[in-house]
């Protein structure tokens, strides 16, 4: 009598009832008790099969039986955009970048449609497609449109052989236009710029890297870390040009790039130009509609737009009220994922606000891994100070801990060439742990593989010299502790 028992019926009554009786009685008395999921079935359409759209689809499916359709013109299946560079470099094929096998979508009743959406009729709740396909109606719409590469009106920016790096189509284009070339030029010193530099470098293509700032990505990285990456770029024989702007891209007789001219007037011959001066929300086709947009699609804390039943997530969403110190547009893998998780709750009947926790991020600059937790600004703010350690011989590892000048609570860290345990830093920062405690307990955050050289002691010794009043005793592990 498991059913009767689970409903808490008295044994003597339970014995008299069949399962069907029990269900009938309870359903009559408590009609809502059996409705764990909404009874009406909506058609939820998601435009965009990147991490935000796909996470939304998966999360909606986990929580409901709504009909779900995901539309993308880019690829048939979800793939990891962050891995595009590895396809070019030959580390993986496109197939390897798909996080789920192809059978996954049908099994989870997520319909996939390969098409470019050309327009949206918000009144009729209808999507239009290119090439005369019949329109599709929706009950709820999630816009996960992603980004596109910035172009700042440079002369020649639309020539053949000039391309950004964001989509699968961009990658195919780059593949085609970097075959047998003698030089590539990359414009814009951010995360995608350095990825593209690494890609060309992996194929042995001489590369010039134009960076407008005086040091690589120094709008985000403090001077020391930025300098470390400058060194790393040069160690990889990429021709790094700091404080150099692009003035013009020059065409050959076939409309293909043959050179760039820098702000200093220097001409650099090349057959490919990568435009990597940031990305912005891909919102052109919803710009002149009732949908409110600024740089991105404006959304409230629950990712709802100004139009009922229309939501926006991921790179294309712009928060009317930013979350804490986060930017109103967040173009990071995990924020896209979290927005997808969050909007799914609202769409399945539980309105939920997007509340990201403590900031974190990571990247890899050629061979130097980078992780950051909490807030580390390019320059310490007024109330902040930072403790910085750098490996003295090779200068390819460092740790920066930013803390509040008065309270000595840690606010964030930058780790280069060291892997740090997210969970531990999240806790330290969340609880406002004292700098000294953090330095003392640093090994708790250690996440490098076994046998790797340990730097906690060096860091602690440096801390002792910088803070003579508060001495930390480095702890040495016994051999037995090390083995087990």
């Amino acid at each position: 009598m498991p059913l009767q028992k689970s409903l808490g019926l008295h044994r003597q009554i339970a014995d008299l009832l069949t399962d069907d009786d029990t269900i009938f009685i309870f359903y009559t008395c408590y009609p809502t008790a059996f409705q764990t999921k909404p009874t009406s079935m909506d058609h939820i359409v998601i435009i965009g099969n990147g991490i935000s759209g796909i996470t939304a689809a998966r999360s909606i499916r986990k929580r409901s039986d709504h009909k779900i359709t995901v539309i993308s013109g880019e690829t048939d299946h979800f793939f990891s955009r962050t891995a595009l560079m590895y396809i070019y470099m030959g580390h993986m094929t496109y197939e390897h970048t798909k996080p789920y096998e192809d059978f996954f979508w049908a099994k989870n009743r997520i319909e996939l449609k390969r098409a470019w959406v050309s327009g949206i009729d918000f009144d009729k709740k209808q999507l239009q497609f290119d090439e005369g396909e019949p329109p599709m109606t929706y009950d709820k719409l999630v816009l996960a449109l992603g980004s596109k590469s910035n172009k700042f009106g440079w002369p020649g920016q639309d020539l053949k052989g000039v391309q950004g790096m964001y989509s699968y189509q961009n990658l195919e284009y780059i593949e085609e236009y970097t075959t047998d070339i003698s030089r590539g030029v990359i414009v814009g010193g951010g995360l995608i710029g350095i990825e593209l530099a690494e890609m060309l470098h992996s194929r042995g293509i001489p590369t010039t890297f134009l960076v407008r700032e005086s040091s690589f990505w120094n709008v985000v990285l403090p001077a020391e870390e930025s300098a470390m990456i400058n060194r790393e770029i040069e160690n990889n024989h990429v021709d790094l040009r700091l404080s150099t702007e692009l003035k013009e891209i020059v065409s050959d007789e076939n409309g293909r790039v043959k050179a760039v001219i820098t702000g200093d007037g220097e001409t650099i011959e090349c057959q490919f130009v990568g435009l990597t001066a940031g990305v912005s929300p891909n919102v052109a086709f919803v710009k002149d509609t009732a949908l409110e947009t600024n740089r991105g699609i404006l959304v409230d804390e629950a990712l709802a737009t100004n139009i009922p039943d229309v939501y926006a997530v991921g790179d294309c969403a712009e928060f009317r009220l930013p979350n804490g110190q986060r930017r109103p547009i967040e173009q990071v893998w995990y924020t896209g994922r979290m927005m997808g998780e969050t909007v799914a709750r609202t769409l399945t009947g539980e309105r939920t606000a997007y509340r990201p926790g403590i900031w974190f991020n990571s990247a890899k600059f050629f061979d130097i891994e980078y992780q950051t937790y909490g807030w580390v600004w390019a320059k310490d703010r007024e109330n902040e100070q930072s403790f910085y350690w750098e490996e003295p011989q090779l200068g390819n590892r460092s740790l920066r801990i930013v803390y509040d000048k008065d309270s000595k609570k840690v606010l964030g860290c930058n780790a280069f060439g060291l892997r740090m345990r997210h969970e531990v830093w999240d806790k330290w920062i969340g609880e406002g742990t004292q700098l000294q405690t953090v330095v003392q307990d640093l090994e708790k955050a250690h996440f490098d593989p076994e046998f790797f050289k340990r730097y906690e002691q060096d860091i602690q010794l440096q801390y002792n010299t910088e803070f003579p009043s508060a001495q930390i005793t480095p702890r040495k592990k016994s051999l037995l502790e090390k083995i087990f």
Partner: protein
Amino acid sequence: MKIIQQSGLIIFLIGFGLFLFSFFLPSYQVTHSIVEGQIDDNKQATFLEFADDMIGKSYSNNIELVSELGTTFDNINEAQVKKYGLSAADVEAIHRANRAEEAFTLASLDQVFNSVKPEDEFKKKAFADYGGWMDGRNYSSEDELKNHIANVADNIRKYGIVNQFGFDKYKIKDLKYSIVKAASNGSINDRAGLWIFLTYGLTIIGAVMYLLPKRTLDGNPGIKNNGIFHSAMKNRGWLGILTGTFLIVFYILLYFYPEYMTAWISTVDPVSQFLKGSDAGRFFLYGFIYTLCILVMGVRMMIKYRHSKYQIVRTISVMFFQTAFAFLLPEILLRLNQPYFDFKNIWPLDYDFFFDNELSTLIANGGLGIFMLGWGIGLIIIGVPVFVYFFGKRWYCSWVCGCGGLAETLGDPYRQLSDKSLKAWKVERWTIHGVLVFAVVMTIGVLYTYWTGSSQLFGIVDTYQMRSVYGAWIGAGFAGVVGTGFYPLMGNRVWCRFGCPLAAYLGLIQRFKSRFRITTNGGQCISCGNCSTYCEMGIDVRWYAQRGQNIVRSSCVGCGVCSSVCPRGVLNLENRDEDGRFNQPILIGNDSFKVEA
């Protein structure tokens, strides 16, 4: 640097080419002294009678010689059967001398075979041996009686004659090999040192010249998997298929047709003489090449992963265990008249550990032999569970094991070819545990035979048959031909993943009782797929990493490459408290809601 590397490649190809060429190099001549040395005294005359035109004849290749030897042995067996076998007339005569309603008597044979010719003497004696059980028996019909007589005659033909006057199939296999090896002449036999240099020497020098410049040519230390999927060698292109074909052919020759590879075996005779004081056999050649592959490709592994101390230490470990424990020590033991023993090989991978001949050898040896027996059993019942509990199965599979050693060195360029699909995982669980069950049942049978002397387990299964099926299909076919031959086609761990019964045993413990797991770092995973791509065991590592779940899988050999290739520092191999090992998936960072348990 580039020039050194390219010259290295050329030298390697010359050395490898000479190695292939040396296969065809010797000429062969069977002499009287070879016959005297290889064939039992009592059969020499017969052999010489049938092999008359072979003696002293010069053969330019072993294919012809092997084929003629085969024909000769067949002819001998056929002639002896004809001479000593009971003809239809003999069967008829024995039948006539007895009657169904009366008891069968062996005495009746005296009437049938009444001459003093050796053939008749043999027939009489053989029938008494093979048909003794018929003596005094009554038969219900004439047909039944006749059938039984004919059966006895059949058995005499099949076993009695071939053993006594001819050669059985195992003997033929051995003799083909040893006669061909002894009959080979030419440069390899006369100037073995030179040939060792020309083949192995050049190959090693070339390989090292090719590999060392990678330190600078392939860029700074770090993961450099550039171009792997554009490579004809590493992505099942023509070079990969060619390499796989070579390996498969090599293994088939090694296990099933060693008589054709005597030239290669002769080349390493001096090495074998130096180590154990006798000529090389095929498995000495195999061990020699195997160890060289692990050493040379181990150097490559250390260069490739020179930024990772975990990979360096692990590679040194497999190089050491192969060279010292698998190759040198057993040979030195032989030289000291001790049993051949690989101290790091563990049943059921070492599937013949409990075979009667192995046990007898160890027990007969006394002190050291008994210690070896105890050591082997201790590893099975104490070593495996204790070490797996503390470190995971990696302590064996990617640090000590010879198969693992080859996979992690020679096989490293192919690790990305393993199948990551859910389907492959399902197949894997059936096959690997199937082989484990087979190995256990086979061993029970073998021990049953050892203790009771009966070759029938449960009265139905022939334990000798079972062990020979295991040896041929699993030991040679699966572990060798498929396990290594398919490196360039299905990745470097085909055997370890789909077949190895020891891996299955280690894996069961790792799955259920171990401190080992791969942890994922908060919310940092970007689902790029490098970890899954480079997992040689075909584990879809990303599936766990992107949902923040510890990776606890029986198949994980702990090579650590997922952690090495991860661009975001997400994965880490850890031995920690068992609590929380099977964690609820948790991704740090989204405070919008509490994750349901």
